[in-house]
């Protein structure tokens, strides 16, 4: 499959997974873990992870499903984790915000803002010390850019010329607080990164082809030993901050704003971009949707049949056994 279609297909997969899980989350009340859906933001994870190599690693914040799946994390292990099962990717100890798939280079999701930034800088520092041609990627939101650790970690990475790709997924809100309430008017996050002397760009985070092209350039930049690279990708979260529901009528944003971003849905944008070369792309997407819907439903069925962790193993992992 050609690269463009692969990117679209991966976005469709993540969308299907999250839409199915969100409905079940709401209706069943069996996934007892705070869950942050990334519906509407798929182009970021997909475009960036497709630019990474198998030896490159990723860390991300609490909105973790997209990067986990895009970096090759196993769907069934993720679903089992949400249901708290022993077969979950973290054995039922981590939940939605602590997904992990070290075998595919998704080292971990973190629940405290900006931790994923420090972690990736540490990994990049390790690669620089070893002289390994590997890149560490961190996904975080615009809110994390207000944490002290953001600035400390950027300063460290730039000073050490660590191979770190910073991916700021700017969806405009920290829970319900808009960017303008939190960051000085007339300033941008990507320019702050440039202030630390690193390569930095801002682009449309809903255009998966642009994201992928920029990420490829950034990854190669890092791999070539030219230091860290910063991408601020503008996107939008459709659902509530945490949980499966829509919240456009809660007062902090408008339906018109949501609608304008749904018009720029990353899947819709990518499909439109491919339609000239592939006139039947919409039918193909519809077929993929059926395929992935079944895949996630199968994963749910399997996860439900899986055992919970044994209470006797409650302490397992607190220390090395």
């Amino acid at each position, binding site marked *: 499959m050609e690269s463009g279609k692969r990117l679209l297909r991966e976005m469709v997969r993540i969308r299907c997974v999250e839409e199915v899980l969100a409905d079940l989350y709401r209706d069943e009340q069996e996934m007892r873990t705070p869950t942050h859906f990334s519906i509407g933001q798929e182009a970021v994870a997909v475009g960036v992870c497709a630019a990474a190599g198998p030896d490159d690693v990723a860390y991300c914040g609490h909105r973790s499903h997209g990067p986990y799946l895009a970096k090759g994390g196993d769907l069934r292990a993720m679903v089992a984790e949400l249901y708290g099962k022993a077969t979950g990717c973290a054995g039922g*100890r981590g939940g939605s915000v602590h997904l992990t798939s070290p075998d595919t280079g998704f080292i971990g999701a973190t629940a405290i803002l900006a*931790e994923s930034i420090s972690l990736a800088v540490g990994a990049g*520092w*390790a690669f620089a010390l070893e002289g390994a041609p590997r890149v560490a990627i961190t996904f975080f939101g615009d809110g994390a850019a207000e944490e002290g*650790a953001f600035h400390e970690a950027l300063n460290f990475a730039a000073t050490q010329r660590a191979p770190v790709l910073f991916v700021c997924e700017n969806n405009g809100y920290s829970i319900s607080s808009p960017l303008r309430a939190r960051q000085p008017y007339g300033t941008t996050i990507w320019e702050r990164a440039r202030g630390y002397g690193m390569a930095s760009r801002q682009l449309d985070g809903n255009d998966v082809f642009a994201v992928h092209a920029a990420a490829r350039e950034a990854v190669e930049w890092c791999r070539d030993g030219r230091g860290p690279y910063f991408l601020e990708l503008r996107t939008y979260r459709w659902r509530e901050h945490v949980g499966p529901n829509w919240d456009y009528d809660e007062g902090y944003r408008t339906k018109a704003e949501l609608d304008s971003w749904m018009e720029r849905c990353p899947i819709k944008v990518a499909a439109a971009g491919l339609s000239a070369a592939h006139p039947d792309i919409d039918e193909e997407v519809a077929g993929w949707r059926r395929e992935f819907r079944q895949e996630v439903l199968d994963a749910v069925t399997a996860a439900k049949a899986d055992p919970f962790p044994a209470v006797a193993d409650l302490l397992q*992992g*607190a220390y090395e056994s």
Partner: protein
Amino acid sequence: MRKLKYREAIGEATVQCMKADPRIVLAGQNVDDHKGGHGTTTDAFRVFGPSRVLDIPNSENAVAGIAVGAASMGMRPLVVHARADFMFLAMDGLINLAAKWRYMYGDKGGVPVVMRGIVGRGWGQGATHSQNLHSVFGHFPGLYVATPASPADAKGLLVSALRNETPVVLLENRGLYEIEGEVPENPEPVPFGKGRIVRTGSDVTIVAASLMVQEAERAAGLLAEQAISAEVVDVRSIRPLDEAIICTSVAKTGRLVVADTSWARYGLAAEVAAVVAENVHGALLGPVRRVTLPDSPAPVSWPLEEAFHPNARTIAAACLDVLGGDPTLPMREMTDITAGFVGPY
């Protein structure tokens, strides 16, 4: 056996472990300068240079996470904090990431980060440069926390820390840095969770940590002059805590005094008292006494500072008290352990 100062023992362990394991990297502010972490990092920098002994920016918060990230890729970062009080800024990486990593990611592996914190003592270090944080760190499952009280333990516990898979916090009291003692030349690990009988006795047990172990030993000397036999137990590690050595001693003596370098509330002294109450309460022949800091931040002014820190005489007085003796009994004056210290620090 040859003797080393406490700080020299730390430096020697660092070099020996770094030679044996290329994954160890040492990071801290000014670890490469002429003072070299009070002499604990000088040799490492000379031997391994700036790539493995890194002078880092003033970024305790991010550096804690950076160390965990490096550990998640197979490195073994050893981070030095010239004042332990700055470790409050490192709490997120240390507590929310390092301590929980193995557990919350499903027991796939640990992040063997080691953090050394140097506890200021004396010379007006004051409220924010002399805090003993072992009880703070000791609260959280997933960490090992130790307070070496002798040169041999300063070396042996650091060797253990740099070889094991669990994140470790080592808190070193600056007042111990010039103390000399026998230290094995080879890097012999001292295990976490094993206390040490510093001095055997039969009338009262003094459980102590860090600098208070030295003071407790001297207190035992004072008590011996009054024909009282005190047993001194150095817990060495705060977590895991060697409950057996504490309980065995108290079962023998029937009396317990706990001497700590920090405050009483929710601290090590309270924990030791709880362990005894839970396990050997029947053996107690009298009340437990905690010898700890007064309930205020640390002062600067010289006479206030002298009054602030517990010492051999206050420990000995507490022992007399639990033995039903007269705690106001005159005891000979003793020079403070850190008395030889001169500034600027």
